[in-house]
């Protein structure tokens, strides 16, 4: 199904929603993301009607929180993934989702990046996709299981019949490759 959509265009749509409350832009986002969010939730075991409701809630959050979207911090797809992930933890697991707060005075700030070092997350997303596709199957499988099966690594190890240490070292290898893909510069 990999119809390729330009990540920069999706980013621009969220910005249009934030700045102009643009409903046409929002509908385009809905058409693109709502079925994917629903697919993600069902992949993680939600039933059809729960996934339907949560996908709608996620899109409502996109509309309401669009002003918080920062294309310098994440792509639209990544931002909407985090919204769906958190809604799911809250609604299905009934747990809270602790996250660092950028406005927390006790937050230790990062070292300032110069303007030309700033990450272009729309491009980074293309590189990330390529890097994921280029991982050896034994590594990409572990990344997918982490995101789409919600299995702790001990359970993944048991399921795949691997020692936990092997799972951990493959995850470290995979993460190093993904980090390299992101670190390649804008």
């Amino acid at each position: 199904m990999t119809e390729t959509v330009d990540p920069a265009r999706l980013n621009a749509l969220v910005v249009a929603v934030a700045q102009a409350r643009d409903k046409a832009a929002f509908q385009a986002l809905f058409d693109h993301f709502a079925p994917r969010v629903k697919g993600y939730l069902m992949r993680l075991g939600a039933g059809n009607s729960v996934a339907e409701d949560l996908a709608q809630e996620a899109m409502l959050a996109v509309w309401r929180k669009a002003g918080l979207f920062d294309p310098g911090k994440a792509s639209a797809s990544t931002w909407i993934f985090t919204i769906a992930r958190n809604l799911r933890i809250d609604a299905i697991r009934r747990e809270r989702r602790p996250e660092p707060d950028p406005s927390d005075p006790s937050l230790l700030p990062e070292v300032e990046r110069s303007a030309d070092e700033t990450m272009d997350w729309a491009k980074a997303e293309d590189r990330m996709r390529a890097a994921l596709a280029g991982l050896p199957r034994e590594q990409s499988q572990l990344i997918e299981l982490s995101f789409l099966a919600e299995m702790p690594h001990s359970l993944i190890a048991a399921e795949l019949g691997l020692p936990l240490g092997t799972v951990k070292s493959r995850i470290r290898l995979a993460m190093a490759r993904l980090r390299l893909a992101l670190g390649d510069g804008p």
Partner: protein
Amino acid sequence: MSIAHHPGDELLLGYAAGAVSEGVALLVATHLALCPLCRAVVAGAEAAGGSLLAEVAPVALERDAYRSLLARLDGPPSAEVARSALIAGEVPAPLQAYVGGDFGRLNWRHITSGLAYFPLPTRGKTRARLIRVAPGAAVATHSHRGEEWTLVLTGSYSDVTGNYRAGDVQSTTPEIRHMPVADAGPVCINLAVTDAPLVFEGFLPKLVGKFFGF
């Protein structure tokens, strides 16, 4: 503060994926407030999540889904700006939401004169507690039935595996047996998360551990 012991890729990936329990997520989020390096790792892992979302098989919504959502759009945009009004000095925001004040005002439960704890209301499969150890005091020798993650918030402690200071995370697996001792200096406060009870050695520590539900 320079952090020597990080949660590690597996934990950061699990956090980014939303796969870890609330207690572990609390520990990771609190570490992230103190560690820009790990924040960058999580941002990268979340980007992998964004890519996977783009590739997941879409499932069509009900036919009138968009129209019924349109009717709900007219509420006010959410004002999620003033979240950090509660912050009080030494407690990073993610943890602040659970303790609701600074460490000095908590209703600590004393185990011995040098050792106290405060349970945190997390749900899910792990238990989270603050552990306060006076300088020179020790947590009795124990091993683990499952995993234990400890984030140092103030002070520092040492055990057979090394020395842990504010911001550091120690992950222990069942085979590790240790007796953490708080170093001289400020009182050592840790956030400890376990997925199974600890195994204390010796009659008294066993009894005390059972009594306090460790």
